[in-house]
């Protein structure tokens, strides 16, 4: 037995899956951001030498996956599964990229929480003995997401101050049972869908904050821990205001967070100098922050133990037009230094 479930939503890995390698790609604004220098692949522009944004994202996914395999020194036939997804309808950016990859593929959709979802599944596959190595990946593309979810790019509208900017970027990790590890995954808490009735599709931070608060609180209850067990808790893409709302909800549960709660959307961009309103969002937001900031910090010993909680808003343009509220989801992973 390599793991056991604890509490109502969590798994504790007795033999923790190891994070062996990471890779990331990013667009122009991401290159200019605080994590830009650590990107493995820097897109030349939003088109990435292709003739559509969708193809650009597809190539970015393919490039990131190839790069992480290359960096790991593994042969691709040693990797048993890929768990990956993106924001496009029918996750085409990922599915199309997989045409050129021979590894068996599980496509996952968790909106912007996809990196958490794919990593949890990969971790369970590895820990359960179903794979020696598994790869988890997630991506998003600002222009492609705007086109699908919002208005044409050249349209001269105003966006609310509390809106976030979709990150153009992707991140991939290879998990394995053995090898030289950068960090390890000691536990996971899979989130449930939480909907507090926010109908403003621009306010994704507020839509997802209750889901993040629920998953984090449930995680702490399942593991019988306090936030002080963690150097930092990173939500995925709540932005400045969603983060504050989540903090209030968690503290109302009786947990004292002090200044441990951060958001990947505030790490990937510099809100002072970059015009991103409340912060970054999208699958790429938490994926890049994980690969370029959290894992290096665990490797360097800056953090010992981190809770990584990618957050997703499970809306579609159609659901918004039909006046539906925005359900949120959040998945937590315990990442520890080796």
């Amino acid at each position: 037995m390599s793991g056991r479930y604890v509490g109502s939503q969590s798994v504790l890995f007795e033999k923790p899956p190891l994070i062996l390698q990471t890779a990331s790609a990013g667009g122009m604004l991401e290159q200019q951001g605080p994590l830009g220098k650590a990107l493995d692949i820097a897109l030349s522009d939003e088109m990435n030498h292709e003739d559509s944004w969708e193809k650009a994202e597809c190539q970015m996914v393919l490039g990131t996956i190839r790069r992480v395999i290359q960096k790991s020194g593994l042969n691709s036939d040693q990797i048993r599964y890929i768990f990956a997804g993106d924001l496009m309808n029918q996750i085409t950016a990922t599915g199309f990229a997989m045409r050129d990859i021979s590894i068996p593929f599980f496509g996952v959709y968790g909106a912007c929480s996809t990196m958490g979802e794919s990593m949890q599944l990969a971790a369970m596959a590895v820990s359960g003995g179903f794979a020696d190595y598994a790869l988890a990946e997630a991506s998003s593309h600002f222009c492609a997401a705007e086109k699908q979810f919002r208005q044409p790019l050249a349209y001269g509208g105003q966006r609310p101050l509390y809106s976030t900017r979709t990150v153009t970027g992707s991140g991939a990790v290879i998990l394995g049972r053995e090898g030289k590890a950068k960090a390890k995954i000691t536990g996971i808490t899979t989130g449930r869908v939480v909907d507090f009735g926010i109908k403003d599709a621009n306010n994704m931070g507020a839509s997802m904050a209750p889901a993040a608060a629920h998953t984090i609180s449930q995680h702490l209850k399942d593991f019988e821990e306090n936030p002080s067990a963690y150097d930092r808790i990173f939500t995925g893409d709540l932005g400045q205001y969603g983060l504050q709302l989540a903090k209030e909800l968690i503290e109302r549960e009786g947990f004292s967070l002090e200044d441990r709660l951060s958001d990947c959307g505030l790490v990937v961009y510099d809100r002072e100098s970059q015009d991103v309103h409340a912060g970054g969002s999208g699958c790429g937001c938490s994926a890049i922050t994980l690969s370029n900031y959290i894992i290096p910090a665990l490797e360097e010993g800056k953090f010992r133990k981190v809770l990584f909680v990618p957050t997703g808003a499970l809306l579609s343009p159609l659901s918004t037009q039909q006046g539906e509220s925005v359900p949120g989801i959040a998945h937590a992973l315990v990442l520890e230094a080796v």
Partner: protein
Amino acid sequence: MNMTEQGKQDYRLRVSAVCPQTNLLSGCAKAFLVGGSICVIGQLLLYLYQNAGMDMQTASTWVSVTLIFASAVTTGLGWYDNLGKFAGAGSIIPITGFANGVVASAIEFKKEGFILGLGSKLFTIAGPVILYGLITSSLVGVVYYLVTMLGG
């Protein structure tokens, strides 16, 4: 966690308090400044065309054509959305905003082809304005007709 209807309602109230709204006063001022400037440019163009010998009707048609052309070009260059970011309704409401909506859609959906992309998506933003604009003007026309009949 308090997942009752009351808990959710309290949360939504808290959301309104935490999330900042665009400043109405400065927003209106910017919209007035830019929207007004576009109108002033239109007025100057009208004088220019009239001075060039056009009658009122022809001159005002040419003013519209000039503004639409200018908006289409600046949309294509990626300038108009920056103006919109600053001006809000100030650059959406004038005829230039209408042109921006059409051209932006044309650029964006050209990738899906001329029929199913550009052709069908060209009026995604401007379409409702045309439809309800026509309906409203027809209704106003009917009201005008009735009022003049009764009054006349």
